[in-house]
């Protein structure tokens, strides 16, 4: 991380906010690798997957990008979001462990499910309204563009954009609450 990275990142995010989706994708991938390093250093005990922190941070960056002042450095803003999401994950894990302990006390013969655990965000996807889920799944799982998704689902592009945006906000709200 040096001054050049910082100004490149700021440039990418400024372009993204002006509507450049490609610059935004680049920005998010670079942000992801910074957060991955950060989370990897901070998580010393098991129980939290660094990649979950990466994904929750990216979603928060997206939903809260209006809180970045474009005349200030990006990285302090980005790491502050990552730190908040990490603390939030520790807090939620603490609560979940309590819940799991309670469940174990009630019925401790439950076999461990041996499916690979899906990402937290993937699980949140299942709770969306059908239209939102279809839009989100078409864009991210099938890798379609907005216009392809609109054609595929028989909706207007605006409807797809709105469904996508609302779906992302709904996923974000789940993390603030739980």
């Amino acid at each position, binding site marked *: 991380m040096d001054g050049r990275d910082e100004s490149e990142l700021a440039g990418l995010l400024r372009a993204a906010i002006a509507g450049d989706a490609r610059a935004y994708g680049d920005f998010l991938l670079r942000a992801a690798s910074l957060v991955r390093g950060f989370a990897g250093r901070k998580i010393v005990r098991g129980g939290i997957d660094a990649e979950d922190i990466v994904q929750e941070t990216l979603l928060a960056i*997206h939903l809260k990008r209006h809180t970045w002042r474009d005349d200030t450095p990006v990285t302090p803003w980005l790491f502050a979001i990552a730190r908040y999401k990490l603390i939030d994950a520790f807090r939620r894990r603490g609560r979940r462990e309590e819940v799991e302990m309670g469940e174990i006390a009630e019925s401790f013969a439950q076999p461990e499910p041996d499916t690979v655990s899906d990402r937290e965000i993937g699980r949140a996807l299942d709770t969306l309204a059908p239209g939102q889920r279809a839009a989100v799944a078409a864009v991210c799982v099938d890798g379609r563009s907005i216009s392809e998704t609109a054609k595929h689902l028989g909706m207007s592009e605006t409807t797809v954009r709105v469904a996508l945006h609302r779906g992302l906000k709904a996923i974000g709200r789940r993390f603030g609450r739980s």
Partner: protein
Amino acid sequence: MDTNELVQLLAADARPRGASISSVWWGAVGLAITLAAAVFLATLDPRPDIVAAAETPRFLLKFVVAIMLAASAFGLDRALSRPGGTWRKAMPYLAAAPVLLAMAVIVELLLLPPDTWSAKLVGTNSVVCLTFIPLLGIGPLIIFLLALRHGAPARPILAGAVAGLLAGGIAATFYAVQCTDDSPLFVATWYTAAISGLAVAGAVGAHLFARW
């Protein structure tokens, strides 16, 4: 969902971006002042001797302290609503209003004979003060909690408490127009108690509604 898929998804949603947090704060404070003014006009009247009172330093001091509190809380909460914001730099300004009020209390104690202290402290309408400052402040507080919810406060409880101080500063400014107790002893006791109540309500409200 792997991270590359998520990036693709977020990039597809690049266009709509919320209103910038700084314009939201200015809008919120304008709306809050309007709302507090409307509640004031609907429920209270200016004190009858306001013209004469306006020439006394004790009466004017109430406005200076309340506006200083609101201004410093406004600057601090704007910084607190942004991740990585420089809120620590804005923190010391929050002490300005309490320090000024404390100095006024000391001067008041020096000026007044000790046997009048308790009468000045109790005043004539502390219950009205404890009722109307929260009543004038609750609407503004809700507006500021919505602003915090739109932002991304990394310390929601602190940000909520400061939102309560901001709402309290605005409410106290309006309430002071009606209030006939001008002694700093009264202000330091009852205004502080009423504003602290709003700060606690703000902290709880932000803990419940401004997490993200």
